[in-house]
């Protein structure tokens, strides 16, 4: 279970999150959609305290951490229950692909090297990069890095997985593969929050959709509800040409 209560965050004089409340049940997959610069990334980062919000609290699996009183220990506890896939991948530059995925298993979860290696290799193969074990991140294409980011998070088997546009650099085939993998994992009870701008992906991966704009949650509900019968005018407008946003523009 993930509960987010009253999260607010301001950068300078730019209020980016204006009080976000969100409850996600175990095994739920939440898709976070909304225009660019709306605060999706900031919300994900606030959940695992990469960004310390000004107000609000986060509860994961019985552990509640308040932004204003959070101790370092609490924060690390919380982070160990989550894993994150970054919009800009953030792979460890000084580690090979294999080491990138093994890292958390060995240092954080105290798994043996051998065990970690087995898990890591399986995950990397699952995202189709079994031939790149010994490459460094700088030697991968964008989509390859993104997949390693996903593999790294998956390998940790966290309670809550936070994914920031995990398919932004992937072609449709690969995206479909990732979709399948995530669905597989969701069945095991892992909770996921996925920020994405790929509406089809959101529709099929999630069982709950949250539409954010401008630091607020505008509307939320089942994919069916949001994509087929959005209540809010803004949601309707955002999704109007979902099937093909470009069609109207072509000559």
């Amino acid at each position: 279970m993930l509960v987010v209560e009253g999260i607010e965050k301001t950068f300078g004089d730019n209020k980016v999150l204006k009080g976000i409340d969100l409850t996600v049940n175990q095994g739920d997959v939440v898709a976070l959609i909304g225009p660019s610069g709306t605060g999706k990334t900031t919300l994900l980062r606030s959940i695992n305290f990469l960004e310390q919000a000004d107000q609000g609290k986060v509860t994961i699996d019985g552990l509640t951490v308040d932004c204003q009183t959070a101790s370092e220990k609490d924060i690390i506890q919380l982070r160990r229950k989550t894993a994150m896939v970054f919009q800009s991948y953030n792979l460890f530059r000084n580690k090979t692909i294999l080491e990138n995925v093994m890292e958390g298993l060995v240092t954080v979860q105290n798994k043996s090297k051998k065990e970690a290696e087995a898990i890591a290799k399986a995950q990397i193969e699952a995202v189709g990069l079994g031939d790149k074990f010994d490459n460094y991140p700088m030697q991968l294409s964008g989509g390859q890095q993104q997949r390693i980011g996903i593999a790294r998070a998956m390998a940790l088997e966290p309670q809550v997985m936070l994914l920031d546009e995990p398919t932004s650099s992937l072609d449709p085939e690969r995206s479909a593969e990732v979709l399948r993998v995530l669905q597989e994992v969701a069945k095991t009870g892992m909770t996921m929050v996925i920020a994405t701008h790929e509406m089809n992906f959101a529709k099929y991966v999630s069982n709950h959709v949250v539409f954010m704009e401008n630091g607020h949650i505008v509307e939320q509900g089942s994919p069916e509800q949001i994509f087929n019968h959005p209540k809010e005018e803004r949601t309707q407008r955002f999704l109007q040409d979902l099937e093909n946003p470009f069609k109207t523009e072509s000559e």
Partner: protein
Amino acid sequence: MNFDIQVMIDTIWVVMRAVPRTFGIAAVVLVIGILLGAVFAQLKMKPVPVITPLVRLFVSYMRGVPLIVHLFVMMYSLPQASSSLLAIFGVTVQPHDFPSLIIVITTFSLLEAAIESENIRGAFQSIDPRQIEAGQSIGMTRRQNLRRIIIPQVLSVAIPLFLNAFLKNIKGLSLAFTVGVVDILAQARYAAALSYRYLESYIAAALVYWLICGVLQMIFNRVELKLQFGETRRQGV
């Protein structure tokens, strides 16, 4: 122990007299050192046959050998060399008329260049290659890219290193005294010789050195802050 504050204060004034000179020489040395060091660093990072190995040898020699030896070597070779060079043009200069200031500046600048070449090389390793590519992609020449994109980013690492070097220089100049240039410490020693108050004189010198450093630190901090480019670096936890 008898410590005389008044003597110390008097000495500070005396020692202050050497500040402009010491500071000036150190600044000249730093500037030459950085410029030449940048060239050396470039040559190390983008090797050129023959020249690069020579540069490496030179840097290794300059860094490895004690300053006093460099000064000694320069003191004997530089006047000789330049007077025979000038003789070719029909100018006669007695080697011992050769200004010791030039010996000092030459020696220190070459040493500084060797040191800075390594500092600069390290700072360059902090640059994300994608930043260089961004500059290239909009058609910048290498020089434009260096000046506008790379160097400002290198500086955020290098500025504190330059300050380190500058402070080392200011103090290293006490050796310049070997060839007759009076710096802060030497001035303090003269004062001590007159007053027989060694402790007071050394503390006075320390305070003057520290003052210079304080002023510099303030300036360099400002620059360093400017070079953070809006990054909110809360890297704790």
